[in-house]
């Protein structure tokens, strides 16, 4: 209970203050104390380091706050459309490589409200088995039939598509009206990249539309931060709809959809999240604009390129060190999310508390976000962490790992040591 929902008292930067809580009734309720402890942050989604006050972004954000106030109090179509919103839409479209884009105030709502507009009864949605719950809710809310294909397996996707197109709708056997395949760029619980080129080839062959959810990968991977498409060499014009959020890499809130001009025009007139919901808060919009400008290098410095290089170096270094130490780490190279497998649910609080005692804050994930026996601790690397921070983190995790016994893979030096021990016993 005390491993989740830990309150913090400062910005979620590389080092932050975790508020200590104590409990009088065996962790059923927790009271805050005024004590805080400074911990290394290995859990927040802060890929490019924009979470805390930034020298370029924050003055502009404060200026926009004073000009436009904290909220617009009305929907985009009524009175909530400001110059900042239109500027950001154009900027996002340019950044991602699509003709047009549309903004929403929250990432979760983006998925749940867009999918029902694009497809309805008589359509088919084929989604990856490990998709996020916002996609599942959107698919369920649309009324279309949903089929699942095995995670990141283009061959199985092809089988499912062939079977479904040949069979048609479930009971009437009429042909499907349209098929949409939904995949994510980086899967947040596995840290794996999506096998995009092959999945795109399959979809093109069977004339299915593709929907790519880049919540974790936009801004964090790729040479200039443009996401999974750039990293894997897929042309953005091939993907029909690209979705992303601003919460992770750009340190703000909200989501966007980028697609062709006709689709965006249709969405602007039909999507309920655009018509009824309050528009994004103007300071948050300004934060994204400034962050994207930094990443693109348009602010006049090369901080963006440095940040991107830093995060790639950090992730690869951390991952290789963890693997050398004998931990079981999932995920591909270059991905800033790395889960360390714990497997045993009893090890979750042990790992979390021990790390906190030594001033490292990690995130542990259990059921229902992952299967019951596949519990894991998830590390999110940030560009604002320096090499020393990472080394300290590695030391602590290594010590805790030894204590708990989660180094499932043998380590090179240890093998030699154990062989020596055996020889001594003989």
């Amino acid at each position: 209970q005390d491993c989740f929902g830990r309150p913090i008292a400062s910005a979620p930067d590389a080092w932050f203050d975790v508020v200590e809580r104590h409990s009088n009734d065996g962790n059923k309720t927790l009271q805050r104390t005024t004590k805080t402890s400074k911990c290394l942050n290995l859990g927040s989604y802060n890929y490019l380091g924009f979470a805390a006050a930034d020298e370029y972004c924050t003055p502009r954000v404060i200026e926009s706050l004073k000009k436009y106030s904290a909220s617009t109090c009305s929907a985009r179509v009524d009175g909530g459309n400001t110059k900042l919103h239109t500027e950001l839409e154009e900027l996002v479209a340019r950044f991602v490589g699509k003709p047009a884009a549309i903004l929403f105030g929250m990432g979760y709502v983006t998925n749940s409200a867009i999918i029902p507009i694009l497809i309805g009864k008589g359509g088919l949605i084929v989604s990856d088995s490990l998709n996020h719950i916002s996609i599942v809710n959107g698919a369920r809310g649309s009324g279309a039939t949903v089929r699942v294909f095995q995670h990141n397996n283009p061959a199985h996707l092809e089988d499912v598509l062939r079977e479904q197109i040949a069979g048609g709708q479930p009971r009437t056997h009429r042909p499907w009206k349209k098929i949409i395949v939904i995949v994510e760029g980086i899967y947040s619980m596995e840290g794996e990249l999506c096998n995009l080129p092959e999945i795109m080839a399959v979809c093109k062959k069977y004339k299915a539309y593709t929907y790519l959810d880049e919540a974790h990968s936009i801004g964090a991977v790729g040479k200039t931060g443009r996401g999974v498409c750039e990293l894997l060499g897929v042309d953005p014009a091939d993907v029909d709809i690209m979705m992303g959020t601003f919460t992770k890499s750009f340190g703000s809130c909200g989501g966007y959809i980028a697609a062709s001009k006709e689709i965006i025009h249709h969405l602007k007139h039909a999507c309920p999240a655009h018509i009824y919901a309050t528009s994004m808060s103007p300071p948050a919009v300004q934060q994204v604009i400034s962050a994207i400008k930094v990443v693109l290098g348009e602010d006049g410095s090369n901080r963006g390129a440095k940040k991107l290089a830093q995060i790639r170096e950090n992730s690869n270094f951390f991952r290789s060190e963890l693997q050398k130490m004998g931990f079981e780490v999932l995920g591909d190279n270059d991905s800033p999310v790395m889960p360390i497998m714990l497997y045993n649910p009893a090890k979750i609080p042990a790992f979390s508390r021990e790390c906190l005692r030594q001033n490292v804050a990690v995130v542990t994930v259990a059921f229902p976000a992952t299967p019951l026996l596949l519990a894991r601790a998830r590390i999110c690397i940030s560009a604002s962490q320096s090499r020393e921070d990472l080394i300290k983190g590695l030391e602590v995790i290594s010590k805790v790992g030894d204590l708990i016994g989660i180094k499932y893979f043998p380590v090179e030096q240890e093998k030699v040591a154990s062989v020596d021990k055996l020889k001594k016993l003989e």
Partner: protein
Amino acid sequence: MDMALPIVNATTAALARVSAAFNAPLARAVVFGVHIDGHLVVEGLLIAVIVFQLSRKSYKPPKKPLSEKEVDELCDEWEPEPLCPPVKERSHIDPAILESAAGPHTTIEGKEVVNFASANYLGLIGNEKLIDSCVGSLEKYGVGSCGPRGFYGTIDVHLDCEAKIANFLGTPDSILYSYGISTIFSVIPAFCKKGDIIVADEGVHWAVQNGLYLSRSTVVYFKHNDMASLASTLEKLTRGNKRTEKIRRYIVVESIYQNSGQIAPLDEIVKLKEKYLFRVILEESHSFGVLGKSGRGLAEHYGVPIDKIDIITAGMGNALATDGGFCTGSARVVDHQRLSSAGYVFSASLPPYLASAAVSAVNYLEENPSVLANLRSNVALLHTGLSDTPGLEISSHVLSPIVFLKLKKSTGSLATDLDLLETIAEQVLKEDSVFIVASKRSTLDRCKLPVGIRLFVSAGHTESDISKACSSLKRISASVLSDHV
């Protein structure tokens, strides 16, 4: 006849010989006190043949699965529909782009206009104290919170805000959501599951409808804001149906309906709820901070004790001039949502500066209750001013800060109604610099109430603003609607 007889004789002789042949070996066999005679054997054989025939499966043509080549052909032939319908000629104009804060006066395209399109009821947009607290938060915490509530996304301002709201309303606890409309469509599926019964008003807005759909419960609608219809629906559902006593039952209403501006009569609803044993979920987005002597919402307005309402949700994007939403109720109601509400657990938390803005907004409301009197007088003024507009009539409640004008005579189709109303709004903006909007409907919205022009009144409007709006609206609607009567 001559031929028949010998044949009959021959068959009987044959049968007799067969029986004798059978009888001979079995003459002395007695089973269960019954002589085994020859005819029993024949009968046994016949029964065996009949049973064999019955048990044979009927003939079905064999099922051949499609061969690879056939599947290939089908895949090649199949053509999908385009992803979106082609762009219609007569699409709506792009919404106006604001160039300054959306307060009572704002700038559009360089001109200053009077703004009746933002739900800024207490006039808090541009308030100094609010902006100062936001700046403090921004410098301390940055903009975003970078994580869901369970994973280091809980910042101490969130906890302060929850405590403050619970304190203000008089409930034990409250829970914050990161986006206004996601509040209601996460709360409803967290409590109502498949097999429950929900009775909802037919005028609820899209977010509530989405929540009802996602909860997979049985939903029964009653006529918009009609208490007699509600009573009869509740009666029909509970009378004589023993099963209803064992399943959970809910009533979902909004306090001020976005689609019509009506106010739900809470005292009657509470009476009905206690009579028929239902639970009430109240959506207070537009009445929190507006109704009631000190702005505590619909319960204070009607003098109903707050603990009679089971779940209250509200979006903070209206009176409190921030973003996000909250839900409050008993301690167990709130605790349950921390683990099982989809929009809370799986989504990033509210940016900290918006939470601190909410805290200062509630503080302001507590310290200056006179702002409510301003709001009420403005609403009354607008009502009297617009009551004789040609072609339009006011269909909202006298106390509601959303003044809803609908066409006296509808053209019959939603699209043409909307066109007329939008022309009115456009012209009012161009000619008189008053910014109003027509309510738009999404294709997914199942609400059947008429569309209209909505004016959101703020405590920051002055009398001259209101009289300007009234006169311009009267003039323009007279000219636009004169040829359509």
